[in-house]
């Protein structure tokens, strides 16, 4: 094992052991977001019941920070009310990871965007 890592312990942990990786077969909504700067692509699956996110999963093509941001986002989302979930910012994602390198901040932004997009999709769906 190498001794030094490019990311914080928390990021490395989420990268090595991503939580909630995979698909939700009967997801309420799915959202894809991507950031061309880095060739990242994140797909977020949410299962929503009433006002609550009961399950969240992801698939991500991306760097270590992107995978870790995806992983921790799903952890933050599970069991959370929609209105609380809407308050989750990219800063909160980065903070929950114990910080990200400046150049990797777009990964936490991508996580926030995935969440926002999924919830918008859900609103649209609810309306229709």
């Amino acid at each position, binding site marked *: *094992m*190498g001794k030094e*890592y*490019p990311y914080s312990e928390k990021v490395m942990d989420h*990268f*090595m052991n*991503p939580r909630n*990786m995979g*698909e939700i077969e009967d997801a309420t909504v799915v959202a*894809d977001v991507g950031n*061309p*700067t*880095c*060739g*990242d*692509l*994140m*797909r977020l699956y949410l299962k929503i019941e009433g006002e609550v996110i009961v399950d969240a999963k992801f*698939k*991500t*093509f*991306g*760097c*270590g920070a*992107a*995978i870790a941001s995806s992983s921790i986002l799903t952890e933050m989302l599970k069991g959370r009310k929609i209105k609380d979930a809407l308050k989750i910012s990219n800063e909160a994602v980065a903070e929950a990871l114990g910080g990200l*390198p*400046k*150049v*990797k*901040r*777009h990964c936490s932004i991508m996580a926030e965007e995935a969440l926002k997009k999924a919830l918008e999709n859900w609103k649209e769906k609810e309306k229709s």
Partner: protein
Amino acid sequence: MSKMVYFDRVATALMAKEAVKAITEFLQVPVGNPSAHIHSAGITAAKYIDEARHKVADLVNAKDNEIYFTSGATESNNLAIKGYISGKNEGEIIISEIEHYSILDQVRTLSSLGFEIKFLKVDRFGMVNPDDLGKLITSKTVLVSVMMANPEIGTIQPVKELAKVCGHKGVVFHTDATSAVGYIPVDVTELGVNMMTISSQVLGGPMGTGALYIDKKTILKPIFDGGNQERGYRPGTENVAGIVGFGAACEMIKTRLANESVRLKELGNKLWQGLENKVEHIEFTGHPKLRLPGHVSFWHKFIEGESLLLHLNLKNVMAASGSSCSSNLKGIDEHDLRGSHVLTAVGVPEEYCTGSITFSLDYCNTVDEIIYVLDILPGIVERLEEMSPVYADYIKKREQNG
């Protein structure tokens, strides 16, 4: 593997033990400033530099007084271009489209100062064509710079032919041989180049030292103002310890180069074939034959490079995404993350341009290490494929299409 498997020579080779020994011994000798020509302590330091200069010159078949020490390849490249252009106000400069940033960013600046920049295209193997160069050169062309070997994709350019084209047209030719000297035999006289950048760390010497070969016809101005060091081309007290290590590494490489390039080529081929057989969905980059020995580079269609590298590192394998700039985690903002212009130039789709992997082997590497990497890589790839939405889509599509 408990031992580190180091496959990142193009960024920096692990230091050769000969270089470590030479520096360690040198550090025990009480020396003064090599410009203190009057006292023994200074003269001793100067002798160390002279000896190292001879060893560097010897490796590339230059004369001692054609070798100028610098702080590394970046400075050599800057000295070659800025030093040659200095005093001129206009003209055309031709470089290949896959040069290192230390060339590329210079010509960007020069372009804003009134120089016209022309880019020599590469084919899908990253190879330039000497005929194309012939067509690009006009009476206004003042300088051509094309690297000898590309660190990211391994392709070796036809430098001798390029130099010949320039020679015929009376244009000065510089080659950045950072990733070539020490890997392959390089003979400046036979190649006929006017200037050549040499790096210490790629051939087993310490980081932060290098040289510029300058033939006697080519006159430069120094970048720094100051003292008379390096015959006035490079003012500033020399990095004597670094130069001593650089020289020792050159001496070592010289004796081993012939055997090593065969051995590295075999190791590289084994790695290449193993990857081809064991890992699906990868695309090799660079020229399949005319490439650095022991250099294997590729990208994976469904996996991002950094995450692959991180997993390799967890298993004690150190490799690189082609250019260390694209993995610049310490940048100030995202602008410091640059996709690879080299991969773009050889036709890799934009989204993979931060995602290529370069394995570059060294005289320290063994066949066991190749076997080890080929052993662990499929598992890592599988894990990341499973995580990849792009891969999921691909599988779905494949299933739909039956």
